[in-house]
């Protein structure tokens, strides 16, 4: 009779939010994998109903302390879509700059504080810092530069307050941008050194056949806008989102799982963006990718740490380019008169595509709001990854298997509180 076992992680460390992982194994067969998200529902979509469309960037920024800019950007773009206004020129460029700041902050936090300890056999960044203080100092310095972009343009580092529908409330002075660009040039060396550091890690052999979904723009690596594309033929506008994607409730999660109606689960995030937009990276970012041994696409989620490091190089490089090539806009925003209608927008949060849909009445009061965060889109793919990952490793002792499974979840940098959402892991062997 086959031996059965359960591996349970009741509380998973180094992820954002509250959740658990239950794995049930019978003999050598993985019977069930559940990424359980039990953080209580947060009802942000309900808070938004009855509020003015102008309040949406300030309310949605509160969904996440790590990626508030992503929520603000998807919100303002969706509102502008509903009102028929397009923000162009320097204001559009400055939105991209703000997004660069958030990618640097969020990716560097994940690379240095949350993900690197897995590859180096450490339980936490504190153990890592005790052995290699200079490396962690570099990470903190680099992250701080990201914070500085968000603080300058967003008004403060966490939950920025300077983003408005139509642009910004206030644009900082030219000198402040120039000083920031000088600090970004130091950060560029730190970003390149980060790639050199992580490329020496050992990556489990785990190439998977994913359907990658991300934005694609003809001229730039995607942040704020583009068509929604996949490596299996999807090519739609954000306005067509609901024709192709559907959210469904699963019993073990307070976050809805989002699926492609035609094909089921898919992946959003750095691997998807990199693999479908490699040609839009800056020459320096491409050079860093080549040095890290990455090709023009990457199907191994364990290497997402490398891709994040390359995206940090890109974000720093792009931030410098924007500052050096953008004239300070004459007005901090364009007027966005309210009108009745529905607006949809997807932007690229550090963890992947983030979609917002809103319906407004003629006074701009929000009648309907729907927010589909990247982690809820990735949940089914995370579970799928674990099913395939465990099979060749099923004979490992529970403690080792648990460690590696937790790492496989952290590959996604899941933001469970965004998707509603903490991690506990259980492996059940029978």
């Amino acid at each position, binding site marked *: 009779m086959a031996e059965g076992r359960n591996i349970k992680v009741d509380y998973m460390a*180094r*992820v*954002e939010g509250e959740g658990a992982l239950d794995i049930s194994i019978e003999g050598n067969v993985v019977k069930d994998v559940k990424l359980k998200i039990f953080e209580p529902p*947060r009802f942000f979509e309900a808070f938004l109903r009855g509020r003015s469309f102008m309040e949406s960037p300030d309310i949605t920024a*509160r969904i996440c*302390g*790590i990626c508030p800019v992503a929520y603000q950007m998807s919100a303002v773009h969706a509102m502008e879509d509903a009102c028929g206004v397009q923000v162009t020129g320097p204001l559009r460029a400055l939105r991209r700059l703000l997004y660069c700041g958030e990618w640097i902050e969020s990716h560097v*936090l994940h690379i240095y*504080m*949350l993900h690197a300890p897995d590859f180096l056999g450490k339980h*936490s*960044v*504190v153990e890592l*810092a*005790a052995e290699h*203080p200079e490396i*962690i*100092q570099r990470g*903190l310095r680099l*992250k*701080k530069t990201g*914070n500085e972009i968000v603080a300058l343009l967003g008004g403060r*580092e*966490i*939950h920025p307050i300077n983003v408005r529908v139509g642009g910004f409330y206030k644009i900082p002075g030219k000198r402040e941008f120039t000083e920031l660009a000088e600090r970004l040039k130091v950060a560029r060396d730190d970003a390149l050194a980060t790639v050199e550091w992580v490329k020496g890690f050992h990556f489990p052999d785990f190439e998977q056949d994913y359907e990658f979904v991300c934005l694609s723009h003809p001229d730039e690596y995607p942040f704020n806008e583009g068509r929604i594309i996949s490596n299996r033929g999807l090519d739609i506008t954000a306005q067509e989102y609901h024709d192709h994607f559907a959210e469904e409730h699963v019993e073990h999660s307070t976050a809805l799982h989002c699926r492609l109606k035609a094909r089921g689960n898919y992946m959003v995030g750095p691997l998807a963006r990199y693999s479908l937009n490699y040609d839009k990276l800056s020459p320096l970012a491409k050079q860093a990718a080549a040095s890290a041994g990455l090709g023009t696409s990457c199907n191994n989620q364990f290497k997402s740490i490398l891709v994040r490091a390359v995206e940090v190089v890109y974000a720093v490089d792009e931030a410098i380019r924007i500052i050096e090539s953008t004239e300070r806009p004459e007005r901090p925003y364009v007027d966005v008169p309210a009108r009745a209608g529905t607006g949809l927008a997807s932007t690229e949060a550090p963890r992947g595509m983030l979609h917002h849909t809103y319906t407004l009445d003629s006074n701009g009061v929000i009648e309907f709001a729907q927010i589909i965060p990247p982690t809820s889109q990735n949940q089914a793919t995370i579970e799928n990854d674990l099913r395939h990952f465990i099979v060749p490793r099923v004979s490992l002792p529970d403690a080792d298997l648990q460690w590696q499974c937790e790492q496989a979840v952290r590959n996604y940098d899941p933001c469970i*509180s965004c998707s509603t959402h903490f991690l506990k892991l259980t492996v059940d062997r029978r």
Partner: protein
Amino acid sequence: MSTLVIGIGNRDRADDALGLIVIDRLQAAALPGVRLATARGDVLTVLDLFEGTGRVLMVDAMRSGAAPGYILRLDASSGVVKAQLDSFASTHTVNLAEAIELARALGKLPPSLIIFGVEAADFTLGNGLSPAVAAALDDVIGQIREECACTKPH
């Protein structure tokens, strides 16, 4: 020795607002030679605040299993305090204990670091301070002011 008081918390999560309310009240008191700061989401920002400061006092809500309103005073300058500090509430990936131990590992810990924790009853969204924590507010502010007035570190 210069003193910096850092209030940690989130105004929108009931008792987690405590650290920030303490700073509001100390601001109104305008204590000479005392600087005030807050950390609202990213606890790692305290590492920058530590730089060049002789003495730091921190105040935060905690969840240790004590009775709501209980005040804990912890000297973090002398040794690893992770076990005691893990009960401090954090809604994010790096908690206060990790931020302090990270500062220690990086040699960035101020010469004196005292942490005041107040046991919380409620961390739900949108609520104000619970009665037990509101009742402990004057007491913890009194203890912090006494500590600020004390020229020698404990």
